[in-house]
């Protein structure tokens, strides 16, 4: 961990998964912020300006796609890299997310945590 550590914002409402993700990213040297809802997530994002956002789709109240749309309307938010990490892999959702602008769409059960980190590192160069 150092000052130049990349900041990752995790938006995930399943506590177990959020813990696992959070632990993994911290262990991998990232600075992690966490949100359990889209509303809290966008607030944190706009406040702390993370280097990358890992976003779930199915969230209480506002869903991840709606949050993504709002984020993209912000001057800073329109260019922050976002990777969708969701178990909902409906092609419609995938397409919609891709259209709005995300780096990737990962299905949680189909990826290893190590692969997620690897993907994030690739995006952040």
């Amino acid at each position, binding site marked *: 961990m150092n000052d130049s550590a990349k900041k990752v914002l995790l938006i995930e409402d*399943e506590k*177990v*998964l959020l813990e*696992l*993700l959070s*632990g*993994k990213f911290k262990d991998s040297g990232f600075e992690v912020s966490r949100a359990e809802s889209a509303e809290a997530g966008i607030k944190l994002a706009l406040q702390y300006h993370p280097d990358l956002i890992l976003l779930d789709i*199915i969230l209480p109240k506002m869903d991840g796609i709606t949050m993504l749309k709002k984020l993209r309307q912000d001057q800073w938010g329109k260019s922050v890299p976002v990777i969708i990490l969701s*178990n*909902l*892999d*409906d*092609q*419609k959702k*995938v*397409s919609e997310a891709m259209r709005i602008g995300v780096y990737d769409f990962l*299905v*949680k*059960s*189909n990826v*290893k*945590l*190590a692969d997620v980190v690897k993907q994030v590192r690739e995006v952040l160069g």
Partner: protein
Amino acid sequence: MESKDNLRQTGIEVIGAVPWGTHFCQFYATKQDLLDTLVPYFKAGLENNELCVWVTSEFLTTKEAKLSMQKKVPGFSKYFKNGQIEIFPHTEWYLEGGKFEMKRVLNDWVKKHDKALEMGFTGTRVSGNPFWIDNKKDWDDFAAYEAEINKVIDQYKLVVLCTYSLEKCDFNEIVDVISNHEFALIKRKGKWANIESASHYKMEEALRKSESRYRSYIELTDQLAWTTNEKGEVEEDSPTWRKFTGQTYEQLKGTGWSKVVHPDDIPRVIKIWNKAVAIKHPYEIEYRVRRFDGIFRYLLVRGVPVFKETGVIREWIGTCIDITGRKKSETQLAEHAAQLEALNKSVQEEFVRKRALFESIGDGVIAMDKHGKIMDLNKKTESIFGWKTEDVLGKSLFEEFKLADEQGKITPKSLRPIQLAITTGQVGHGIYFLVRKGVERVPLFITSAPVVLDGKVVGAVNVYRDVSQQVAIDRAKDEFLYFASHTLRTPLSAVAWSIEGLNEDSNGFSTEQKKSLDLIYDQTQRMIRLTNDLLDATRIEFGILSYKYEETNPLIIANNVIEDLENRIREKKIKFKLIADRNIHPYRTYSNAIYMILHNLLSNAVKFTPTGGKVGLKISKTDKKLFLQITDSGIGIPKSAQTRIFQKMYRADNVKDKFEGSGLGLYIINGIINHMGGKITVQSKPGKGATFSVILPLALEAIQTGNAERIHL
């Protein structure tokens, strides 16, 4: 009635005055008989300013005639000198030129008559004596001449007295003479008597003339004339009938005429005839009569009874008119009318049928003009929109209801399907939500088709399908998929990631513990694969498996799949061989489908091939098709199982206990291949491996379009 001016004094006591145009005769025995009548006859003529012409005979010569006149008529010389009286022998008149010629003599009389009028006489009084006749031929000719005089005398100011010698006439000749004159004078018991009633003759003449006129008229109008006795039997000839039917008089007389009446019409003819006789009333009937040429013609027959003074019918007279032409026109008119009626009926039936069809449609249908004005709608529309037809007819579709999207955002007029139909002439459709006051939004699948007439869009027909149920089903699908993907995957993810973490930090674990961890991890992965297969199979069944239509290079996808399977290929020391044609270039297709097909078939090949075996992939292409061939040297597929391996959950006997699997993989890719219009086949012998051959069409545009139009909610 004759006017007094036209009455001429004959000078003969028993006759008195007669009108111009009187033709009478006298039978004489002696010269005195002749002088008794002719002298006063001409005297009266001279006194009444008539030209008098006396043609004498050998019986009473010109000389004798003149002498008698001179004796009895004062101023005769003056009359004679003035030319008011001409007396000359028959040889200078009837026999001029040597023989009797009727036409010449008649002409000469006309000339005399005209000359008299020119000279200022009121008319001409003549007398002739056919005493010169001594043979039958001349007698017949003269009789004909007399008859001819009767025909024409009315037109002239003529009084004609013919004198016949009783000695020269036999009985028949006397009858001829009398019949050719209006009346005859004959001496009976020393006194002159009139032996034929002049009035009767005149009446006969009038009748004859009238009949002649009637017949001329009939002929002019192409009618047939007939008369019958009171019983309807023909007694008199009917030349017009004969001419028309070709019957002879012998054939038509009595009831013979009915022989040419159409047999089918006879009963009706008899019935009407009997009725007419019974009520003594004119009748009219149409019936068919066989013409001379054998063709039946329609005749309009009219008959009127002629009564005796006693009120008894004396005879029937009537006419027939050929109305075949009219009848034909009538028939044609009737046929035409019948056709029209039939047509009208069929149009009505067609209309009713179309209407019934229109009403029976389970969807709402609205017909509009090009401005969106509602022209017609069916019952179902009423129930969908909650309208009453009469309230919306003629109103604008855009005013009557609003459409919205799924989120409730009102669809602008320009984006409504009817606008596409009317402005572009193309069929527009899509899912819209009907906004109804106080009612939850109703999802409608709307199709708007332009009505094109002579190349111009004149309106549109919209079909509204209430897809509430479909939407409900779609929601249920979504819920299931949400459950399967999110609810099942989330705990699996948690387990998988936890084990991953444990594995990374497993230094303190015993071998047994590590083994257990591997087992848990493998089973979790298996569970994840089952879930994934279940999701794909479900999507295939719902027809909602999403395809990514994009520029795709099957070779690159094959390499990705091989990369994914690299570990397993290496672990099992499988010799993998990829053969691809040089012409494998990117083309637009379902990239994820190609991946799924290759991944499934190659992972199966690796799975069922023993360590050290061979797996091969061959990719080739023609103009229209892509061929994928996956071969392995694995355990093979029993013959009996080969037809069943693409069925859902089917697992062949030789694999089901030894190999992990859901029994869904081949089912899923078979579904995908079918969806793409392709085909998958298998060739295998147990123990000698298997070959799966996939053929996929390169052109998916049609399918792609169809897919894009699929209703996704």
